[in-house]
Structures are given as C-alpha cells and as structure tokens.
C-alpha cells in the first residue's frame, strides 16, 4: 500500500466530520434489541458447522476505574472499592461457562484481550483465576503467534504485577498515556508520571512481552504543541512497538464525564490539526510505519508485517492479524462477532449481572448482516486495512458489477477524486498519500446507513473523523 502520508491542513479541515470508526460494518448504532440470545446461540451453532470453523478471539471487558478521566467515552464504573472486582470476575467465569459450550472444542482461542475500564482494577489473583477458568472452558492456542493482551493503567501497576501477568500468559500490553503535560493532566483528571509509565513499559520488556502499545490523545484541553512534542519525544525514546494517536471527541451531551471539561480550553480545529501533524511527523521520523486511522507500529511489528503482506484485519479491538476469527465478548457492554452477526451484551452492570445470575446469556442487542452488509463490510475492510478497494477482486468474490452496484457510492466519491484523496489504478481505487489520513471519510461513501442525512448530520452519534 501507499505508505506515504501527506498532510494538507486545508483539506483535513474541510473533511472533518462525524463518522463511524468502522471497527464493524454496519456500525454499532444499527444494532437492534430484536437480536436475542437465541439468535446468538443459532449463530454460534452455525459457525461450528463451517468447513473450517474459525479460530476464536475473546474480549473481556472490565468496567471499573479508580477515578474518572474526563475525556473518556468508554463504558465504565468509577469506584475505589476494590472488593467489587472479585464478584465481577466470578460472574465472568459463569458467563464463560455458559458461552464456551456453544463453540466446538477444536476451535482454538488465538486472541485474548482484556479491555476496560481498567483491567488491572482486578487483583492479580482474581485475574489469574479468571484466565485459568477461561483456559478450562475454551481451548487456548499454544502457538507462539497467539495474542494475549491487556490494557493497563500505569498509575495502578505495582511491583510484581507485570511478572504476574506474564505468568498468566499475557504477551502484549497497552498503556494509556494521553499526554505527559502536567497542565493537560490536571484538566483531564489523570495525573500520571513519566517515571511510572516507563517503569511499567520496561517491566513488560523484562518479562518477555512481545509487544507494548501506548495510547496518546490529541485535541485535549490545554494541550500545546510544545507540551505534546515533549510527550512524543519521551515516547519515541521508550520505543513502544505500537503507538495509537486518537483524536479527542468532545460529546458532553453523550458522555457525562466530558462535562467536566471546560470547552474554552479545547484547542480549535487548526490547533487540533497541528497536534496531529506533529504526532505524524515525529513518529514517522522515528521510524514508525503508519498502519491506518490512528495507528503506528515499528517496522518489525506484526501489524507492519501484516500491512506489507496485505493480510491486516480490523475488528472491535482495532487493527489485528487475527480478525479472521469469531469474536466472543464477555462482560458488560462487550461486543461479539460470530458468523454473519454482531451482538452486544447489556451495557449496564445490573442487567448484565442479573442475566448471568439467572443463567441467561446477557445479549442485549445485535444485528444479522444481510448479503449487502457482508459485501460493504468487505469493501470497507479493504479500505481501512489496505488503503484501497480492489474492484476486480470484489466482483469475482461477490458476483457483482462493482461500478453499477456501487453507482451511488461512486458518485459520492467524485468530490474526493477532485480533491486528490483517491485515485484509480487499473481496477483498484487507491487512497493517495493525501487521502490516507481520511480513510473514514472514503469509507463513509460506501456506508448504506449514512445515506440518510438525518442520521449522519443532525445527531452526532459518532466522533469526528480526524
């Protein structure tokens, strides 16, 4: 793929509009409560009956956090009461015990991800018990390529924790950093020292973790170019294998914690773009490859290799090399992708708890993909993961004439072509070096559910594209 990036502030500003992140297509707002646990069971049974049933990925959501970071839009529960961890972990075990038998035993778990919230809210002992139980109910792959990852808050990582995670089988860690600038940290209620962060990263290396990821955010209140540059320089020196640079999406009407943020302190559109630009420049200058969307990785990292080989995938956990698997979400609000279906567990803790306590699958809503959804999902997947759409390949695989099937989408692409965001290379539609930062914008042209402007424009359900 075209790995160059061209930063055109004027264009980026013009195309900055709300849009889905396409960790799934159709995206989550399309999920419906008509999809029930019976549908989930049916999909699981069907997926077992494919000629080569897919491997499995497990996502485990731990919703608890010790304190609220004001920028956060995740589903989480703020508590300092550590005792809430153990009963939650016990229910996760019960949920896994219900779900696992729905999947045949010859389907290996090749990816396990703990996200949150703050997964290390759980005491190492509770976490170890949980992982061991999952390993009993499911069959964990023993291949070196398996990814067992955990999101960690460096502020609550204690001595010995990382060694314990390694012993449980984790080989990837992801740390939230956002910005080391003290003024920013105070404005977002997240005070985190450089020292504790680097210590945690070093501990992962010392205990043989294959990969470390660091999350940064641009567009935060009080953020300055100088401060963010300092953060970037510090991170580049620590040399994590992967870096994600997310744009802060200010949607206080939707996320209560964000109401704590003083809007007057937010950088304006031009400043946001300047922050993004320095991030891209610093990371690429330091040798990081641009993977797509908000992600960068060192050249030897699995993501960079997959990008080069054209085998990169994208699922609810972001970019991955294992998305050709069925994804099972455990815990409140977690999302599953099994066969041609998406489903999501109850978002709030009480209904999730009572479903598990009553021995019911806590499925709250979901979606069955129809043939058109499957086709568009494939087009968007190619775009997000390879920066191109291979029309000939899509035509052979789906038995359609691309340009007539997607006549409406092709018309929507016209202004993007005029602006030089995409170009034609034989049967391929390719994102140019200017367009690669706007993959979401290009993908939106193929999103059937955005066709009605009422959804796309009046209600900002999605974060801004940049």
């Amino acid at each position, binding site marked *: 793929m075209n790995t160059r990036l061209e930063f055109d502030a004027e264009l980026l500003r013009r195309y900055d509009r709300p849009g889905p992140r396409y960790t799934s297509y159709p995206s989550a707002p399309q999920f419906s409560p008509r999809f029930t646990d019976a549908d989930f069971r049916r999909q699981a049974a069907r997926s*077992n009956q*494919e*000629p*080569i049933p897919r491997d499995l990925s497990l996502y485990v959501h731990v919703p608890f956090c010790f304190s609220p970071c004001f920028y956060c839009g995740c589903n989480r529960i703020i508590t300092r009461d550590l005792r809430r961890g153990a009963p939650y972990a016990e229910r996760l075990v019960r949920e896994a015990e219900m779900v696992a038998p729905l999947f*045949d035993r010859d389907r290996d778990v090749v990816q396990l991800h703990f996200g949150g919230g703050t997964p290390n809210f759980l005491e190492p002992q509770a976490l170890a018990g949980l992982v061991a139980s999952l390993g009993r109910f499911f069959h964990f792959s023993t291949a070196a390529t398996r990814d067992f990852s955990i999101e960690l808050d460096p502020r609550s990582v204690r001595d010995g924790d990382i060694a314990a995670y390694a012993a449980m089988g984790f080989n990837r860690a992801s740390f939230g950093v956002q910005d080391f600038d003290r003024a920013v940290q105070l404005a977002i209620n997240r005070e985190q020292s450089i020292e504790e962060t680097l210590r945690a990263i070093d501990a992962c290396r010392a205990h043989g973790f294959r990969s470390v990821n660091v999350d940064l955010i641009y567009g935060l209140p009080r953020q300055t170019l100088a401060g963010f540059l300092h953060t970037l320089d510090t991170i580049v020196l620590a040399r994590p294998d992967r870096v994600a640079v997310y744009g802060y999406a200010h949607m206080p009407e939707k996320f209560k914690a964000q109401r704590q943020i003083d809007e007057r302190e937010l950088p304006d559109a031009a400043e946001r773009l300047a922050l993004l630009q320095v991030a891209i420049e610093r990371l690429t200058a330091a040798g990081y490859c641009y993977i797509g969307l908000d992600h960068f990785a060192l050249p030897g990292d699995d993501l960079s290799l997959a990008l080069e080989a054209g085998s990169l995938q994208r699922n609810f956990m972001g970019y991955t090399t294992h998305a050709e698997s069925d994804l099972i979400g455990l815990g409140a609000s977690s999302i599953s992708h099994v*066969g041609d279906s998406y489903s999501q567990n109850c978002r709030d803790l009480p209904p999730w708890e009572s479903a598990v306590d009553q021995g019911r699958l806590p499925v709250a809503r979901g979606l069955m993909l129809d043939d058109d959804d499957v*086709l568009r999902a494939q087009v968007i997947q190619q775009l997000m993961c390879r920066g191109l759409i291979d029309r000939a390949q899509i035509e052979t*695989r*789906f038995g359609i004439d691309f340009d007539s099937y997607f006549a409406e989408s092709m018309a929507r692409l016209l202004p993007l072509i005029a602006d030089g965001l995409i170009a034609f290379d034989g049967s391929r539609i390719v994102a140019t070096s200017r367009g690669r930062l706007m993959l979401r914008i290009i993908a939106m042209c193929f999103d059937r559910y955005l066709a009605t402007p009422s959804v796309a424009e009046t209600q900002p359900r999605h974060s801004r594209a940049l």
Partner: protein
Amino acid sequence: MARGARCGARASAMIRPRAASGPIADDGDAFRFCSTCAFSAACLAQGFDKSKLEELHMLVAHVGPYEEGAHIFREGDPFEAIAAVRAGTVKTYVNDSEGREQVLGFFLPGEVIGLNAISHARYPCNAVALDSVMLCRFSFPNIAALATRVPGLQQHLFRLLSEDIGKAALLAGNFTADERMAAFIVAMSRRHAARGFSATRFRLSMTRTDIANYLRLASESVSRGFSRLQDAGLLHVDRREIEITDPGKLEALARNILRE
C-alpha cells in the same frame, strides 16, 4: 404452489453478492422448461416440448419453499412422486438401529430425489432441506406412463437411477481422508458445472457434521482435511464458500475414487 409465484426469488437473486449463495434456476414458463430441469433434454430430444407434455396431463407441480430443516419426506411415507431440486440443497439420510444418522447423499439444483423409492411402495429414507429448497414434483405413475411413450425419457430415468446407485458406491473402499475430501469437492464442482454454475466457486450448504458423516470421517478430520488442502494451495475456504484454486491437483487427488 402455483407457478409464477417465484418473482421474489428472482428479484433478490439479482443482487447476488455471494458466489453461489442461492443458485436458482431460470424458471421457464408455459412453453420453456426450467433451466435446471432434470428431464427437459430427454423430452426435447424426443420432440416433446412443454406444451405437449401439458396435453398429456403430465402435471408438474412446483412446490416449496421448504425452509432449512424442513422434511420433504420421511422414511416409510408412501411413495407417490419423485422431485427435481430447483433451488437449494437436499440431504437424504437414514437412522440406523441405534438411532444414529447415516447421511446418504446431497442433492443440488437439477438433481432428482426419491429415485431410490421406485422399487418400493414407501420412501426408504428421509429427505430434509438444508437451506431454502424449491422442488419440481412429478407424479411417479404419470412419468412412468409417459416413459413408455417416450423411449428417451425411459433411458434417462435409468441413467438417473444408475447415477444414484453409483454415488453411494463412491465412498465405499479403502481411501485416505484427503482422497475422500478431494473426491467430494471435485464431485460437487462437477455437479455445479453440469447445471451451468461456476465449477471453481460455490457454497457448501451442508454442515461439516454432515460432510463428515457422509465421508465416514470425524468432524475434526474434515476441517483438518480442508485446512491441508487449503495450505497446499488447492482451494480456499471462506466460511462456507469454496474456491478451487488448483483444479488439476485436486482432480489428481480425487482420481483413485472417481476413476474416470
């Protein structure tokens, strides 16, 4: 079901994103046979077009759709008719004395079910729809009567019968798992091709449990077999869709069983 009540299926087949998700026949009309008709060639060769057959009161009834899992007939039901599959896939099976299912075969569009009942008064097996199935039903007494007047039709019936017997013999014998797998896929490919569908890209509507049962292999062995064939570059599997990428090698592997 009355003929003509099939427009919905055709319209949705126009947007047919998946390779062979529902190969559906061109349904024909009062004068033309359906494109998948199991008998049209034999009849036409003898100068019987569809309007003449109607005169002979050869009532051909389009029936269905049968939804996934619905039984078309069950073992012991009185035998009245044979049926050609117009769309979807039908599985036939019996239950052995211990109640274990034994898969006898799979029937694709253009193929005829119920032939093994001809010498009995009752169906000797069960037939179940694996996806949405449409049938073309022939009263057996009528078609047998017609066959006496149309020699080509009689020969055609005999050929269908012997093919049906041959299919069962296919998998008896001492063959490796990979040979069985290859023979199964090559046979599926040829049968799709025979009805004008793609020989290299089709969807398997049967479960891996059914394939395993039919090939007398364990379910896990079927998946490992598909994986080996995929790793060797002979085919590519995406969920239920099969793409044959090296037909020559696959045929070679199947040769011992298919013996042509």
